[in-house]
């Protein structure tokens, strides 16, 4: 199976968000791969490898990053996890809206013709949760968003996806090629099945760490740069971020000493019960 995964870099969510003059102040920001994209890389690797004592590859994973040149660091870390090659389309972090990102992915899809387009369900900074659905709409491909499980069929022609929906889990079958976005639970030990790795195999929870060997190997893996002109992408933005402001801050309240004191506060001060 040939899989194209997308990756964005985002400021580390553990660092405090700084807003200056109505814009995000990224001075001193540490960038990481958007966690959901990292999960998508993990799911793609699980789909394209055979774990039986030793691990052998049985498919190809290409990671597509859209961002500044520096983003090659984050792409290298995806290669170190085990992805086969990476593509970097240069653009600024905040300069591109979902529409432009989607058009880039459509163009790369048309060059690469993967069987599966795998994306994180959302970025943790912009939180738009649009790109995959836009891409599926533009390409006329079936989509399964918010995957907690992915199972490839034995013939490699379809996937069955467990989707986290309000109130439960929906199971949806899609013929390939298709677009899938991954949710948090996609990285649990037995979330991904590919009919190669024994179904009883349990992965460690979470995206894999790069091994030293993986890091060494990543340096020799292809990482090609592309630009919008080469891809023929001329999309204009459809959404503009005009300004950012800090939300109202919540004040810490008081500590109470006992259950009785808590009930008293809730009844007589907060008047909520």
């Amino acid at each position, binding site marked *: 199976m040939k899989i194209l995964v997308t990756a964005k870099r985002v400021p580390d969510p553990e660092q405090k968000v700084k807003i200056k003059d109505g814009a995000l102040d990224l001075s001193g920001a540490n960038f990481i791969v958007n966690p959901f994209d990292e999960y998508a890389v993990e799911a793609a690797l699980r789909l394209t490898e055979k774990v039986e004592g030793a691990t052998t590859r049985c498919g190809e994973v290409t990671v597509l990053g859209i961002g500044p040149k520096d983003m090659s660091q984050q792409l290298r870390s995806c290669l170190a996890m085990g992805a086969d090659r990476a593509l970097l389309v240069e653009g600024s972090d905040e300069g591109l809206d979902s529409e432009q990102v989607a058009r880039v992915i459509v163009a790369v899809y048309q060059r690469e013709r993967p069987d599966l387009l795998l994306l994180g369900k959302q970025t943790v900074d912009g939180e738009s949760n649009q790109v995959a659905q836009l891409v599926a709409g533009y390409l006329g491909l079936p989509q399964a968003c918010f995957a907690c499980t992915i199972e490839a069929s034995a013939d490699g022609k379809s996937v069955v996806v467990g989707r986290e929906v309000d109130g439960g889990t*929906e199971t949806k079958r899609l013929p390939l090629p298709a677009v899938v976005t991954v949710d948090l639970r996609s990285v649990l030990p037995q979330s991904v099945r590919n009919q190669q790795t024994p179904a009883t195999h349990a992965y460690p929870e979470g995206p894999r760490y790069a091994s030293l060997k993986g890091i060494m190997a990543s340096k020799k893996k292809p990482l090609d740069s592309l630009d919008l002109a080469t891809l023929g992408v001329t999309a204009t933005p459809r959404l503009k971020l*005009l300004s950012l402001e800090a939300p109202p801050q919540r004040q810490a309240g008081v500590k109470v000493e006992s259950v009785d004191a808590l009930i008293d506060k809730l009844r007589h001060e907060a008047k909520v019960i």
Partner: protein
Amino acid sequence: MSNVLVVAEQQHGVLRSASLNAISLGRALVAANGGGTLTALLVGHELGSAAAELARYPVDQVLTVDHPALAAYLAETHAPVVAAVAQQLAAEQVAATATSTGKDLLPRVAALLDAGMASEIAAVVGPRRFKRPMLAGNAIGLVEVLTSRVVVTGRQTEWPAAQPSAAAAPITATAVPPGPALGAEVLGLAQLPSERPELTEARVVVTGGRGMGSGENFKHLGALADVLGGALGATRAACDAGMVPNDLQVGQTGKVVAPELYLAVGVSGAIQHLAGMKSSRVIVAINKNAEAPIFQVADYGLVAKWEDTIEDLTTKLRALRSA
């Protein structure tokens, strides 16, 4: 003036309550455009009772697109229907609540309409300008959609459920062919029936974290939730560990809730969790670690183990209820 189309939701002929939040959002869009008509759309099969229910709310008309091939929700078949109706009505603004269906469907509709989209908006500032939370609720963005047609989803907690209006709106069935399923099919929907109110609408939410230790222990929180008429929530850690079903997850990437009272038990208060509950009116935290970050947002904090407090709290609240 602008025609506004809101996409309502139903399941097995029952109107989903998130549709009422979408109507409030739709009304705000009409107001921001200096007037216009508000149409609520239901897509599916055997929609009669859901449509009648929807018509009780303040919309100018209810449109139904009823077809057996639309019975199960599929983005593939539903998105072309919504896009075609938007075109028929010359609706300049298309909106829905950011439920899992709204999030799945509306961007695909935007693609088919070549329209710009703003996700999970919290306020309508102008016909094309909206406010939306970003960065785990640590920033509020003012955004502008640059296309003439606008697609938005609204964050459910930011849009009150619409109240019924005096007169019922007319219901019209319109025939729009379903889009091709593109080979996609729904094989099943695993839902655990719950007697409790929906997490996103409950007046009280009792949330347990990893500190609860096991799924079995969540029954104590269930009992507390029941005394308060509340819903049960959980952190990612508790869901990932299989203690409770995934759809109980509250947070940036789970459900966003804003109840009158939020009780967090054995929850550390990671930023991703806070993003989903920070707008609750009153927050109570029970945690054995006095340094847990959850105490920084809690109105009332009790440094204690849940084992020593929850049953006592439940018993005393129950006594108060029956008094």
